Protein backbone atom coordinates (compact mmCIF):
# COMPACT_ATOMS: atom_id res chain seq x y z
CA UNK A 1 0.00 0.00 0.00
CA UNK A 2 1.44 3.32 -1.03
CA UNK A 3 0.98 6.30 1.30
CA UNK A 4 -0.82 8.19 -1.49
CA UNK A 5 -3.45 5.42 -1.75
CA UNK A 6 -3.97 5.36 2.03
CA UNK A 7 -4.25 9.15 2.14
CA UNK A 8 -6.86 9.02 -0.63
CA UNK A 9 -8.84 6.36 1.28
CA UNK A 10 -8.73 8.32 4.52
CA UNK A 11 -9.88 11.43 2.64
CA UNK A 12 -12.89 9.58 1.18
CA UNK A 13 -13.81 8.26 4.62
CA UNK A 14 -13.51 11.73 6.19
CA UNK A 15 -15.85 13.10 3.48
CA UNK A 16 -18.33 10.29 4.22
CA UNK A 17 -18.11 11.06 7.94
CA UNK A 18 -18.98 14.71 7.29
CA UNK A 19 -22.05 13.62 5.28
CA UNK A 20 -23.10 11.44 8.23
CA UNK A 21 -22.52 14.31 10.65
CA UNK A 22 -24.72 16.53 8.48
CA UNK A 23 -27.52 13.96 8.82
CA UNK A 24 -26.96 13.67 12.58
CA UNK A 25 -27.14 17.47 12.91
CA UNK A 26 -30.08 18.20 10.58
CA UNK A 27 -32.02 14.92 10.68
CA UNK A 28 -35.69 15.85 11.00
CA UNK A 29 -36.57 12.89 13.24
CA UNK A 30 -34.80 10.89 15.91
CA UNK A 31 -34.56 7.62 13.84
CA UNK A 32 -32.67 9.55 11.13
CA UNK A 33 -30.05 10.46 13.70
CA UNK A 34 -29.89 6.88 14.98
CA UNK A 35 -29.33 5.53 11.45
CA UNK A 36 -26.58 8.07 10.78
CA UNK A 37 -24.92 7.22 14.10
CA UNK A 38 -24.94 3.51 13.19
CA UNK A 39 -23.27 4.26 9.84
CA UNK A 40 -20.72 6.54 11.50
CA UNK A 41 -19.66 3.59 13.68
CA UNK A 42 -19.21 1.44 10.58
CA UNK A 43 -17.10 4.14 8.91
CA UNK A 44 -14.85 4.20 11.96
CA UNK A 45 -14.29 0.45 11.49
CA UNK A 46 -13.13 1.32 7.96
CA UNK A 47 -10.79 3.97 9.40
CA UNK A 48 -9.28 1.35 11.69
CA UNK A 49 -8.66 -0.95 8.69
CA UNK A 50 -6.77 1.71 6.76
CA UNK A 51 -4.77 2.77 9.82
CA UNK A 52 -3.92 -0.88 10.47
CA UNK A 53 -2.64 -1.20 6.90
CA UNK A 54 -0.62 2.00 7.31
CA UNK A 55 1.00 0.95 10.57
CA UNK A 56 1.26 -2.79 9.81
CA UNK A 57 0.32 -3.77 13.37
CA UNK A 58 -2.83 -5.60 14.40
CA UNK A 59 -4.06 -3.62 17.41
CA UNK A 60 -6.11 -1.31 15.17
CA UNK A 61 -8.15 -4.36 14.14
CA UNK A 62 -8.79 -5.12 17.81
CA UNK A 63 -10.16 -1.61 18.14
CA UNK A 64 -12.31 -2.22 15.03
CA UNK A 65 -13.82 -5.42 16.48
CA UNK A 66 -14.59 -3.72 19.81
CA UNK A 67 -16.05 -0.70 18.02
CA UNK A 68 -18.32 -2.89 15.86
CA UNK A 69 -19.57 -4.67 19.00
CA UNK A 70 -20.29 -1.44 20.88
CA UNK A 71 -21.93 0.13 17.80
CA UNK A 72 -24.26 -2.88 17.49
CA UNK A 73 -25.25 -2.72 21.17
CA UNK A 74 -25.84 1.04 20.91
CA UNK A 75 -28.02 0.57 17.79
CA UNK A 76 -30.17 -2.09 19.46
CA UNK A 77 -30.51 0.11 22.56
CA UNK A 78 -31.55 3.14 20.51
CA UNK A 79 -34.07 1.04 18.55
CA UNK A 80 -35.61 -0.24 21.78
CA UNK A 81 -35.77 3.31 23.10
CA UNK A 82 -37.49 4.51 19.90
CA UNK A 83 -40.05 1.72 20.21
CA UNK A 84 -41.01 3.20 23.55
CA UNK A 85 -40.35 0.03 25.52
CA UNK A 86 -38.14 -0.63 28.48
CA UNK A 87 -35.15 -2.94 28.35
CA UNK A 88 -36.94 -5.65 30.35
CA UNK A 89 -39.34 -6.94 27.69
Amino acid at each position, binding site marked *: *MTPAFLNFGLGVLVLSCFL*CLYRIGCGPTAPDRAV*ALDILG*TLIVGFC*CLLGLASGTDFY*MSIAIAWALLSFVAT*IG*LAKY*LEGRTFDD
Partner: protein
Amino acid sequence: MTETIAQALILIGLGFDLFGCIGLVRLPDVYNRLQAATKCVTLGTCFILIGVLVHAGISPLGVKAFLCAIFVILTSPVGAHALARGAHLSGVRLWEKSVVDKYEEHRLSEESRHAKA
Protein backbone atom coordinates in the same frame (compact mmCIF):
# COMPACT_ATOMS: atom_id res chain seq x y z
CA MET B 1 -0.74 -9.36 -7.75
CA THR B 2 -2.34 -9.67 -4.30
CA GLU B 3 -1.41 -6.02 -3.78
CA THR B 4 -3.46 -5.03 -6.84
CA ILE B 5 -6.43 -7.19 -5.82
CA ALA B 6 -6.36 -5.74 -2.29
CA GLN B 7 -6.24 -2.18 -3.65
CA ALA B 8 -9.15 -2.90 -6.01
CA LEU B 9 -11.25 -4.38 -3.15
CA ILE B 10 -10.50 -1.41 -0.90
CA LEU B 11 -11.39 1.03 -3.71
CA ILE B 12 -14.75 -0.74 -4.26
CA GLY B 13 -15.41 -0.55 -0.51
CA LEU B 14 -14.53 3.14 -0.34
CA GLY B 15 -16.84 3.85 -3.29
CA PHE B 16 -19.78 2.07 -1.63
CA ASP B 17 -19.09 3.92 1.65
CA LEU B 18 -19.12 7.29 -0.11
CA PHE B 19 -22.25 6.55 -2.19
CA GLY B 20 -24.07 5.14 0.85
CA CYS B 21 -23.39 8.34 2.76
CA ILE B 22 -24.52 10.46 -0.21
CA GLY B 23 -27.74 8.41 -0.18
CA LEU B 24 -28.06 9.06 3.55
CA VAL B 25 -28.09 12.79 2.81
CA ARG B 26 -30.12 12.80 -0.43
CA LEU B 27 -32.98 10.32 0.08
CA PRO B 28 -36.37 11.56 1.34
CA ASP B 29 -37.37 9.59 4.45
CA VAL B 30 -35.83 7.44 7.16
CA TYR B 31 -36.68 4.08 5.56
CA ASN B 32 -35.10 5.01 2.20
CA ARG B 33 -32.07 6.37 4.05
CA LEU B 34 -31.77 3.14 6.01
CA GLN B 35 -31.86 1.16 2.77
CA ALA B 36 -29.04 3.25 1.28
CA ALA B 37 -27.02 3.32 4.47
CA THR B 38 -27.04 -0.43 5.01
CA LYS B 39 -25.25 -0.88 1.66
CA CYS B 40 -22.48 1.13 3.27
CA VAL B 41 -21.98 -1.64 5.82
CA THR B 42 -22.42 -4.88 3.90
CA LEU B 43 -20.65 -3.84 0.70
CA GLY B 44 -18.52 -0.88 1.81
CA THR B 45 -16.83 -1.77 5.07
CA CYS B 46 -16.88 -5.53 4.42
CA PHE B 47 -15.04 -5.02 1.13
CA ILE B 48 -12.43 -2.92 2.95
CA LEU B 49 -12.05 -5.68 5.57
CA ILE B 50 -11.73 -8.39 2.90
CA GLY B 51 -9.14 -6.19 1.15
CA VAL B 52 -7.13 -6.07 4.39
CA LEU B 53 -7.42 -9.87 4.60
CA VAL B 54 -6.12 -10.26 1.02
CA HIS B 55 -3.28 -7.81 1.68
CA ALA B 56 -2.17 -9.28 5.01
CA GLY B 57 -2.87 -12.98 4.40
CA ILE B 58 -2.91 -15.38 7.35
CA SER B 59 -1.46 -13.03 9.98
CA PRO B 60 -2.96 -11.44 13.11
CA LEU B 61 -4.03 -8.42 11.02
CA GLY B 62 -5.75 -10.53 8.36
CA VAL B 63 -7.47 -12.96 10.72
CA LYS B 64 -8.82 -10.14 12.87
CA ALA B 65 -10.11 -8.39 9.73
CA PHE B 66 -11.88 -11.62 8.71
CA LEU B 67 -13.46 -12.00 12.17
CA CYS B 68 -14.59 -8.37 12.08
CA ALA B 69 -16.13 -8.89 8.61
CA ILE B 70 -18.13 -11.92 9.80
CA PHE B 71 -19.30 -10.04 12.87
CA VAL B 72 -20.31 -6.95 10.89
CA ILE B 73 -22.20 -9.05 8.30
CA LEU B 74 -24.08 -10.87 11.07
CA THR B 75 -25.02 -7.85 13.19
CA SER B 76 -25.76 -5.02 10.76
CA PRO B 77 -29.01 -6.47 9.26
CA VAL B 78 -30.27 -7.12 12.82
CA GLY B 79 -29.55 -3.52 13.79
CA ALA B 80 -31.15 -2.17 10.61
CA HIS B 81 -34.33 -4.20 11.10
CA ALA B 82 -34.56 -3.13 14.75
CA LEU B 83 -34.12 0.53 13.76
CA ALA B 84 -36.80 0.31 11.03
CA ARG B 85 -39.22 -1.34 13.47
CA GLY B 86 -38.45 1.25 16.14
CA ALA B 87 -38.96 4.10 13.67
CA HIS B 88 -42.28 2.65 12.51
CA LEU B 89 -43.57 2.07 16.03
CA SER B 90 -42.47 5.55 17.15
CA GLY B 91 -44.79 6.97 14.49
CA VAL B 92 -42.46 8.22 11.75
CA ARG B 93 -44.55 8.58 8.57
CA LEU B 94 -43.46 7.15 5.22
CA TRP B 95 -42.60 9.42 2.32
CA GLU B 96 -45.85 10.49 0.61
CA LYS B 97 -44.83 8.81 -2.67
CA SER B 98 -44.15 5.43 -1.03
CA VAL B 99 -46.52 2.85 -2.49
CA VAL B 100 -46.67 -0.04 0.01
CA ASP B 101 -46.54 -0.40 3.80
CA LYS B 102 -46.90 -4.09 4.66
CA TYR B 103 -46.12 -3.54 8.33
CA GLU B 104 -49.01 -1.11 8.78
CA GLU B 105 -51.35 -3.45 6.85
CA HIS B 106 -50.34 -6.34 9.09
CA ARG B 107 -50.89 -4.26 12.23
CA LEU B 108 -54.34 -3.10 11.07
CA SER B 109 -55.43 -6.66 10.22
CA GLU B 110 -54.24 -7.86 13.64
CA GLU B 111 -56.16 -5.06 15.34
CA SER B 112 -59.38 -5.80 13.45
CA ARG B 113 -59.04 -9.50 14.33
CA HIS B 114 -58.63 -8.63 18.01
CA ALA B 115 -61.62 -6.30 17.78
CA LYS B 116 -63.80 -9.10 16.38
CA ALA B 117 -62.67 -11.64 18.96
